[in-house]
């Protein structure tokens, strides 16, 4: 079972700079555990000690926000695409030049 995970710039220090990594798991929680086994530390950047998603982190499964589909209990299937993004202001323009 392969699930494509898109990693934001801010978390790529955990993935050796990779933008996309593969993972597996029947739920989002299982997927994050699987990712953390190979990219140690990434899970605690996404999930708080009390087991909730970090306030400023949004995770989407096939472009849908998981906070409305069961959060960490959201079920996953082979071929699903998971996108992790930090919350930013609406209407934010992309940067013209990368930050130094």
């Amino acid at each position, binding site marked *: 079972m392969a699930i494509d995970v898109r990693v934001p710039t*801010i978390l790529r220090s955990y993935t050796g700079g990779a933008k996309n990594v593969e993972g597996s798991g029947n739920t989002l929680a299982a997927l994050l555990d699987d990712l953390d086994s190979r990219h140690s530390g990434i899970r605690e950047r996404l999930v708080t000690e009390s087991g909730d998603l970090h306030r400023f982190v949004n995770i989407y499964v096939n*472009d*849908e926000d998981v*906070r409305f589909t069961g959060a960490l209990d959201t079920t996953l299937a082979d071929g699903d695409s998971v996108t992790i993004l*930090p919350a930013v*202001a609406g209407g934010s323009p*992309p940067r013209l030049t990368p*930050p130094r």
Partner: protein
Amino acid sequence: MARYDSLLDSVGGTPVVGLPRLSPSADVRMWAKLEDRNPTGSVKDRAAYYMIAAAEKEGRLRPGCTVLEPTSGNTGISLAMIARLRGYRLVCVMPENTSIERRQLLQMYGAEIIDSPAAGGSNQAVALAKQLAAEHPDWVMLYQYGNPANALAHYETTGPELLADLPTITHFVAGLGTTGTLMGTGRFLRERVPGIQIVAAEPRYGELVYGLRNVDEGFIPELYDDSVLTRRFSVGARDALLRTRALIEEEGIFAGISTGAILHAALGVAAEAVTSGVQADIALIVCDGGWKYLSTGAYAGTIAEAERALEGQLWA
């Protein structure tokens, strides 16, 4: 046809039109509320008018006052028009990489623009505006991200208009920026339409905008209350562009790119309604026309070319 005492009196009251060619079946129908038919051409006229009126009523705004606002475009243009008519000076804090049309419109209305760094996007514009507000205690920052009058405008106007024109509404789909449209309209409809689904379409930009140094630099508008929403979708530039073009090709509606993102989410829920065999009347917001985005390259060439042109530009 209708007659109004002044341009400001004509805010709202926009038409709802069916989208017969994009609707998937006779049982699952889509409807567009044309917010580009507002005085300055966007849905933001509603929030701007309400925020100004509220500040006047509270005595915070008097003629000659300076209004300050972080804005990426449409809200600034709405405020600039109202400020001109009411005798206020307007200072907009805008990320420096915004389209030329928006800057020219603001300047024509007499607004002053303070650039915030492109690096950091609207987060930086908000931060700079808050700093300027602290330095100039006599300036009035309306602050659309946290001003209850923004959501109230939609609770009192957009919501009732939609329900009057489409009493069979089952889904409401709109863009998520300040969150005012979804919070206000969503709350109104939830109170009156059992089972209604409130669906958010959030623009997903090029990845550079998400390059915060730290997750704790993230920003959630103070107005946002996720209990109002049923679902929330993230829509990338490619899908938004495809749908923006489909709206022109199939229905003749020339809309801005954020409307394409909203249509994408709406078509998704429409397809699900067909699959589950339920009847649906899906209302979506056309936020503005495409005019202000022509210089971005979004409407020329292939989708791939337009997508490349949008990388590094503001599209919602």
